[in-house]
């Protein structure tokens, strides 16, 4: 490939012991008329080349906002980042100029959006939209960029790509549009790909195609993948490690095998137990009681305490830190030992 602007990006390849991407004690708040929405309250996670981190959690727990902060696409204001770092190969992206940031966004860290189906522009052909990546960021000619677009459509397995490159988004099915979004996100060979609920709107058969495709692409390019999802099945299928979010915090962090074998936070445990199982047919499902928290008025102490079967008095007053259980495991529950032992 010809020499590209990627070679002169501000973030260099030598980064020692630093992970590929590290979110470190990130805080994001929205100052709204109704009050301060503390959407992200000290989130830390890392991802390395070739690794898949799954970010799991309740709706509104801050998964997408964290991703938007990494991409640098939050509207500020109303968003503010009062504290935290986002280090890409050791460089804090939050300290970069907007110009330098632009060099990273979409090129070295790319994102597939939650509402991908509406993210495509209906008035341009898909070929034009994909090739735009090459025209704008790589300075390619129209014809060359279009050729690359066809290649990419092939790569994401759109049948008869050459014939379909001049079709408009509405002429494709939901699954195909999602593949086109993936094509655009991997166009510039990013080192980190953030996929925000990439298959939520899709059928299981199409979901299987897309997850299969993402796994192949990752194998080929060794990109780090951050997969945001609420599907415990998808996580079990593809993740190496998991961060579980609740009310803007990480409440549990673990390898995929550890967490499914024995969760260490009551929320994770509740989620896993509420999955229907064949041997429980005809019985009530386990259900986490109560309602998701209101971010404008977070509960005191542990934000999960109003719904928690393990709660003791100190849960109402003391915010649990992310207790280190082992090298790779952490739980933000005062009673993680009891949870881990399966006592209730």
């Amino acid at each position: 490939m010809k020499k590209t602007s990627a070679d002169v990006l501000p973030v260099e390849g030598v980064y020692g012991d630093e992970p590929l991407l590290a979110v470190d004690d990130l805080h994001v708040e929205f100052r709204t008329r109704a009050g301060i929405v503390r959407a992200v309250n000290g989130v830390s996670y890392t991802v390395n080349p070739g690794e898949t981190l799954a970010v799991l959690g309740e709706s509104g727990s801050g998964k997408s906002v964290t991703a938007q902060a990494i991409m640098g696409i939050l509207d500020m204001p109303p968003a503010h980042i009062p504290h935290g770092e986002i280090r890409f190969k050791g460089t804090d992206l939050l300290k970069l100029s907007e110009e330098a940031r632009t060099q990273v966004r979409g090129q070295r860290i790319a994102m597939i959006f939650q509402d991908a189906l509406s993210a495509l522009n209906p008035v341009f052909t898909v070929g034009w939209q994909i090739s735009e990546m090459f025209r704008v960021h790589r300075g390619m000619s129209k014809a060359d960029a279009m050729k690359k677009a066809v290649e990419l459509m092939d790569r994401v397995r759109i049948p008869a790509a050459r014939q379909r490159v001049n079709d408009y988004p509405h002429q494709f099915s939901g699954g195909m549009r999602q593949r086109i979004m993936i094509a655009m996100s991997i166009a510039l060979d990013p080192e980190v790909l953030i996929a925000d609920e990439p298959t939520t709107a899709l059928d299981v058969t199409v979901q299987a195609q897309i997850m299969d495709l993402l796994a192949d692409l990752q194998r080929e390019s060794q990109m780090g993948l951050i997969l945001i999802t609420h599907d415990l099945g998808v996580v079990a299928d593809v993740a190496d490690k998991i961060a579980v979010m609740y009310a803007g915090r990480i409440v549990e962090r673990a390898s995929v095998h550890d967490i499914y074998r024995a969760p260490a936070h009551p929320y994770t445990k509740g989620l896993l137990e509420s999955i229907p199982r064949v041997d429980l047919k005809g019985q009530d499902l386990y259900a986490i009681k109560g309602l998701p928290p209101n971010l404008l008025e977070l509960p005191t102490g542990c934000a999960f305490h109003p719904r928690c079967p393990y709660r003791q008095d100190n849960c109402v007053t003391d915010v649990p830190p992310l207790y280190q259980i082992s090298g790779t495991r952490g739980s933000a529950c005062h009673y993680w030992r009891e949870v881990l032992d399966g006592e209730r």
Partner: protein
Amino acid sequence: MVNGDRILEVRDLVKHFPLTQGILFKRQIGAIKAVDGVSFDLHKGETLGIVGESGCGKSTLAKVLMALERPTSGSVLINGRDIGRAKGAELKRMRRNIQMVMQDPYTSLNPRMTVGDIVGEPFEIHTEVAPKGDRRKKVQELLDVVGLNPDHINRYPHQFSGGQRQRIGIARGLALQPEIIVCDEPVSALDVSIQAQVINLLERLQNEFDLAYIFIAHDLSVVRHISDRVGVMYLGKFVELGKDTEIYDKPAHPYTQALLSAVPVPDPEGREQRERIILQGDPPSPANPPSGCRFRTRCWKAQEICAEEEPLLQIRPGTGHESACHFAETHDVVHIG
């Protein structure tokens, strides 16, 4: 349960939507065959789950059952009477008996009506069920039944969470004491931690009121949990119909096998070894379905006969339940949760 009273008999049900061209002078150039020959029975107190890919006709089927759409042909008998042909007072009476819970708790409730008005609205239409003086009390009872605070009767939908709004929809569905409730994706818009609450509620109400459910959902493990029988739809037709254990443990149709194998298993152990059938391509358009077997364009078993002859939904050699495949063969794909 399965051998109990039949309260719903669906026979050769067809719903086509005309495809037109031209703005001023519309002419019909074809039809979208959304539902194209569906037959099944539903018994008192039973749950029939319906699964299948987006666009295969599940919601259209639901709407025809509810007489929100008129069938193109075929019949929907509720306690022996055809709702598809009923009119006026008779249609109104029949509708009391079949109610619906919709997918989207955010848009399916009128934001300007109080919860009391929403849940009590069916009484306005069917005044005979609850005389005016009784309504408020009736509505509060309903709120209590679905686990909402009866004192919240004057609140508006936006003051409730998604799961609570779905409960409001369920309370409204129960108002006329129907025998059948059609649930079209009743939990898919809800948070995972809330879904189990709503499913438990639906099961509890079923036992309490001996309700029959048509339960449409894309989450196959939820469908298995709640259903006595399951129908698998593809392009407007049932390709397989049987007891939950037959469909999930002994699927006979290749499409069912592919569908089940695509469901991610919530257990990472042994994930590398799992058998997975990845279907190629997308389902064909319902305006122009393939000849013979509609699944043949994506089927790895297809032979010449599949293009020539339509496989009927019937019990086939070696299988104990109905399937629509010339080469039906039971195969335990995966055990999903």
